[in-house]
C-alpha cells in the first residue's frame, strides 16, 4: 500500500479510537506493511493534519496518538456543550502525585517524609481516580506497598510518557530562586 493510501486510513482510525492509538496496534491491522512504513505514514499524517491548524489536532499521549480539540477553543466548546469545567484535583493531591511521579516506585512513608504530612486521603483519591496504582511491595520490613503512576496519569496530564515531565532539577533551581 502506498503511503498516500495508508495515511487517510490511519487518520480515520485515530478519529474513531476511544484511547490513544499505538503504532503496534496499527501494525496488527496492516500485517503486510512494515512497522517502519506505518510509523512514517503516521508521522506524515500527523504532521499534515496538524499543519492545517484546524479545530482538531493529533497529539502523542500515553504512548499513542489521540485526536482532540485544541485547548484555545475551549470557551466556545463549553458554551456549546453547556458544560462547566470538571472537578480539579486539590493541591494536596497534586503534591502527593508529584512525589509519586518523580520518586516512583514509592511507599507511603517515603511520601510522608517528603511532604511532612500524612497523605493517605490524597493517596486514596489518586487510587480511586486510577491516576496511580500499586506496583508492588518494597523488600523491607513490613513489605510496604509501592505506588507508581498509571497510563491514566499520562492521559490526564496529556503526557506522551514520563520522560516528557520536566526534570526535578528544574524545580530545584526554581525552589532555590524562590527562597
Amino acid at each position, binding site marked *: 500500500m502506498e503511503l498516500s493510501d495508508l495515511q487517510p486510513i490511519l487518520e480515520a482510525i485515530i*478519529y*474513531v479510537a*476511544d484511547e490513544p492509538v499505538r503504532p503496534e496496534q496499527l501494525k496488527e491491522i496492516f500485517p503486510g506493511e512494515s512497522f517502519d512504513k506505518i510509523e512514517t505514514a503516521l508521522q506524515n499524517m500527523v504532521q499534515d493534519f496538524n499543519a492545517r491548524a484546524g479545530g482538531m489536532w493529533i497529539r502523542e499521549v500515553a504512548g499513542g496518538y*489521540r*485526536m*482532540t*480539540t*485544541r*485547548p*484555545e477553543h*475551549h470557551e466556545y*466548546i463549553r458554551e456549546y*456543550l453547556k458544560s462547566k*469545567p*470538571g472537578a*480539579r*484535583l486539590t*493541591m*494536596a493531591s*497534586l*503534591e502527593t*502525585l*508529584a*512525589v509519586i*511521579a*518523580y520518586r516512583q516506585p514509592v511507599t507511603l512513608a517515603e511520601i510522608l517524609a*517528603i*511532604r*511532612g*504530612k*500524612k497523605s*493517605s*486521603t490524597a493517596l486514596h483519591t489518586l487510587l480511586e481516580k486510577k491516576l496511580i496504582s500499586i506496583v508492588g511491595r518494597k523488600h523491607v520490613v513490613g513489605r510496604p506497598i509501592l505506588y507508581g503512576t498509571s497510563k491514566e496519569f499520562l492521559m*490526564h*496530564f*496529556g*503526557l506522551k510518557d514520563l520522560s516528557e*515531565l*520536566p526534570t*526535578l532539577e528544574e*524545580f*530545584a533551581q*526554581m*525552589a*532555590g530562586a*524562590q*527562597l
Partner: protein
Amino acid sequence: MEGKEDLNFESASSEMPGITIRLEAFEGPLDLLLHLIKREEVDIWDIPIARITEQYLEYLQLMKDLNINVAGEWLVMAATLIYIKSRMLLPPDPTTPAVEEVSEDPRTELVYQLLEHQKFKNAAQMLYTREEVENAVWNKPPVEILESEKDLVAVSLFDLLNAFNEVVRRFEEAQKSMALEQEEVSLEQKLAEIRRLLLVHDTILFSTFFSQSPSKRHLIVTFLALLELVRMREIWLYQKKAFDEIYITKGKLKAGTA
C-alpha cells in the same frame, strides 16, 4: 511529647473528618514554614530560627483558638524547631578536639527538607497547569459498541424457550425437597425488580436469574417480564456462541422511555 498536654492540641489526624475546621490554607507544617520564611524575606540558609519558631508557635495557638484540628506532625515540627533553637544557643563544646571539622549548622537538615518540599510544590504546580490545559480539550465520546455487535449470537425465541424449560425442570427437581410458602407476584412488580437488578448489574446470567423464584408462577411471571423488556428494548439477550448460556444485559433504551 511535653508540649502536647500544655497546648491541649487534638492529636487526631487532620485527615479525619470532624466538626473541627480542616486546615486548607497551609497544607502542612512545612508549608507554614515556607510561608513564614517568604513573608519575612529571610535567607533560607540563614533562617532566624528564634523568630520563625516564635511565629510558628503563634500560628499553632491561633489554630487552636479557631478550633482547627492540629495533627501530630505540627507538634513534631514545633519540637524540631525548639530543638534547633536550643542547639543554636549552646556554645561550642569545649571538650571537642579543635582538629574536628566545624560542627554542622543544626538548621541544615530542615533547610534541605524545606527545599525538597518547595521542589515538589513546584512540580505540583506544573501538574496543575497541565491539568488545566487538558480540561480544555475534548476528544470524541467513546463509540458505544454493544457486545452483541461484536461476535455474539442473538438469541432466538426457541433458545429462550429451551432455556426456560430447563429452568422449570431444575425448579421442579428442587421442589421435591423443598416446601416453600407461595407468594403471589404481579408482572409490574417483576418488571420493577428486574430494572432494579439491572441498575446494579450490567450482565446477568439467564439461569441464575430464576434461582431465587419461590414458585412456578414466579418463574413464569419472571419469564414474561423478560419478554416484555426485550420487546420494549430495555434489555438484550445474547449468547457467546450458539446453544451457549444466555446472558441478559441492559439495552440502549432506559426504563420508561420506550
